[in-house]
């Protein structure tokens, strides 16, 4: 046990550690199966005060180091302890423009809360819930607190994609005095926060409120504009912009490549969630976009997106929802909290099996799938246990709707129209440790770089790139080094 050593730096006055983490109220399982309202209801002020009081304000601030965007966590909790919520909001806003989002969807258990000193006793301070409380409080206060804005630098930046990564770069650079234009291909800003994460986990009003906040920093949002189509990256660099940040996000969904996968009622998770969340199909016919749902739904995959799809299916009226995952529960990439929520909502997990074919009802609708049982190999050199099929173990499961949730490949629009942008063989854009791409004046982050990760990691990449872009933009050079045309020609011809 090292906790005594660790807490040496705590305030001199001895205090007993409070290990009673305050629960956050949730909608009951029964109730929430039938609505798209938010499941977690958030702390009241009383609960928030109680939870904040558990923080021992240790000197090492491990939580802050655990945060990909380096939020001054002990400081906002200290403000709460002083009952100064406004100050707490100010502290948050120093490092994030999306506290309402992060407080809800960050995997805190792997980041700030994992690092929390109290986690050594198994009861980390509920940092995410406190962040959410502050963001929600601020939202009820009318005008949000504004950060100090640097004077205009006269530099102009294009940010491509208004998901979490793009929003972070846009707000960071706007605060630093640069003129920012934020391009979005869809008809609303927010990227995966709007089309992907469901209303019951992240209400869209909260996303839009935080988008408006970013706009209030002077960011010029241009919806319905596809970079790679309406303007090429080279056109942006040639015309108005001193630098560009690329965060166009996910691209084409991956499929299993087994027979019958294009049958009717086999969805990609992206389509299923886009219809449901972005287009609000759960409110059809008030909203014009429909979604067809059967009674027995199989969701293929074990990530957070699979959990979201399964939980949407429950709310859209499915009688039985199965999650099909080829490894075991222990290897599931989804957050534990989401898996538990899914289980509470009656979703059934089928581990160690994988679809080998989808079968038709004779009218080209999916009616069943053939699965094969899997087993995990002994750990290989990397320590990873691979799933392998058990020959002859095929069986049939009746389903009338399938959602394939196996991730996406990066959006090819920009790489395919920018020959001198280096990409990996998987199509992800190559960056260095500061977010710079192979192309001068171009940085990148988010799913186009990672191939698919979390909201907060996309924000973290944005934070790093924004710092690098700011350094570049403020180093006094004038409209700098246009990428040498001779070189470009060599590569493109």
């Amino acid at each position: 046990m090292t906790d005594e050593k660790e807490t040496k730096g705590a305030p001199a006055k001895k205090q007993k550690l409070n290990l009673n983490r305050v629960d956050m109220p949730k909608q009951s399982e029964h109730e929430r199966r039938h609505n798209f309202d938010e499941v977690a209801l958030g702390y009241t002020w009383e609960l928030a005060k109680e939870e904040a009081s558990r923080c021992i304000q240790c000197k090492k601030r491990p939580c802050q180091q655990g945060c990909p965007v380096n939020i001054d966590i002990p400081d906002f909790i200290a403000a709460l302890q002083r009952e100064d919520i406004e100050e707490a909001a100010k502290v948050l806003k120093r490092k994030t423009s999306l506290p309402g989002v992060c407080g809800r969807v960050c995997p805190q258990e792997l980041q700030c809360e994992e690092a929390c000193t109290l986690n050594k006793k198994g009861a980390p301070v509920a940092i995410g819930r406190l962040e959410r409380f502050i963001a929600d409080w601020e939202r009820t206060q009318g005008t949000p607190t504004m950060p100090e804005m640097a004077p205009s630098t006269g530099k102009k930046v294009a940010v491509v994609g208004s998901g979490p990564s793009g929003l972070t770069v846009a707000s960071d650079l706007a605060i630093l005095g640069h003129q920012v234009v934020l391009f979005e291909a869809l008809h609303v800003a927010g990227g995966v926060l709007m089309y992907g994460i469901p209303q019951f986990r992240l209400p869209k009003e909260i996303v839009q409120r935080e988008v408006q906040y970013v706009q209030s920093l002077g960011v010029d949002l241009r919806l319905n504009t596809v970079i790679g189509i309406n303007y090429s990256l080279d056109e942006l660099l040639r015309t108005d912009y001193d630098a560009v940040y690329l965060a166009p996000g996910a691209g084409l969904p991956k499929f299993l490549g087994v027979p019958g996968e294009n049958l009717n009622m086999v969805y990609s998770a992206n389509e299923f969630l886009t219809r449901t969340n972005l287009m609000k199909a759960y409110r059809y016919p008030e909203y014009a976009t429909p979604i067809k749902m059967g009674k027995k739904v199989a969701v293929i995959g074990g990530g957070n997106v699979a959990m979201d799809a399964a939980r949407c299916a429950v709310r859209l009226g499915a009688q039985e929802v199965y999650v099909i995952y080829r490894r075991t529960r222990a290897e599931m990439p989804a957050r534990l909290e989401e898996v538990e929520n899914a289980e509470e909502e009656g979703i059934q997990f089928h581990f160690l099996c994988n679809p080998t074919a989808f079968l038709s009802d004779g009218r080209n609708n999916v009616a069943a799938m053939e699965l094969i049982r899997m087993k995990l190999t002994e750990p290989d050199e990397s320590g990873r246990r691979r799933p392998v099929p058990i020959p002859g173990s095929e069986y049939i499961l009746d389903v009338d709707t399938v959602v394939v949730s196996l991730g996406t490949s990066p959006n090819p629009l920009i790489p395919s129209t920018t020959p001198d942008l280096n990409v990996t063989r998987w199509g992800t854009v190559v960056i260095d440790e500061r977010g710079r791409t192979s192309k001068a004046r171009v940085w990148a982050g988010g799913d186009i770089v990672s191939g698919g990760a979390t909201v907060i990691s996309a924000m973290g990449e944005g934070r790093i790139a924004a710092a690098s872009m700011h350094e570049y933009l403020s180093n006094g050079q004038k409209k700098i080094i246009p990428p040498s045309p001779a070189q470009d020609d060599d590569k493109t011809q």
Partner: protein
Amino acid sequence: MYPIVDHEVLAPRVHRLRVKAPVVAEKAKPGQFVILIIDEKGERVPFTISDWDTGAGTVDFVFIEVGKTTQQLAGLQPGDALLSFIGPLGRPAEVDHYGHVVSVLSGYGLAAMVPILKALKEKGNTLTTIVQAPDPERLFGQKPLEELSDTVIWALGTKGDGMMESTTVAMRKLLNQHPRRRIDRVIAMCSLCLMRVLSEMTRPYGIKTMVHLTPVMVDGTGMCGACRLSVGRTNRFACVHGPEFDGHEVDGWEVLMARRCTYADESILQQGFQCRGCSQW
């Protein structure tokens, strides 16, 4: 917002809208499409671009009233505006000098094929155009088709007056003359069933046959995967790899047709919009 600047009724339930969208007009090419949303509760619906004017910054498309959104569109007038208008999406149609090109049009294709025919004409191709409509009343846009084509064959469901009964009869006659009167390429922008039949008709002759497919789409920018289809045994996405595909390489037409009609009952209000023997009704 994207203002409607012109609305013309071309035939019963057939409309042409002209929308102010300079960014779209700037880059439009033959065979590409737009995705629009009427208002904040609307759905995203794709339409093939039928004309554009870079100077005026306008884009035209032609649609037939078949469902909820198209009926709502039919009620819009100059002064109204669309919430969203994204494009030009998809790859442009392949255009080169091929020689003798036979194109087959029906429905919105009567207008949306015009930019492709124009481009083919500029490349010095000889153009034979088969135009299908249910009856003469529902025919529209004849003038540019006549001007651009060397020969126009009208397939209007009535014999006589130089009209053919059906597109397939007309096509069969042309194929019977091949290779004496050689056909170098076929391009079809018509119903899915007809494009399938045409592809099978030309296959034995080895005449390259391009089809313009219109699967259901949601985002239209390569993200959702709704518009996937199997081409040459690999999954392709009509919104980024199409909408023009080699008809001889498309496999799983039946699945494609079934997927096309997934939402027929939710989205399509028009009674009698039903293919014979359709699996979805």
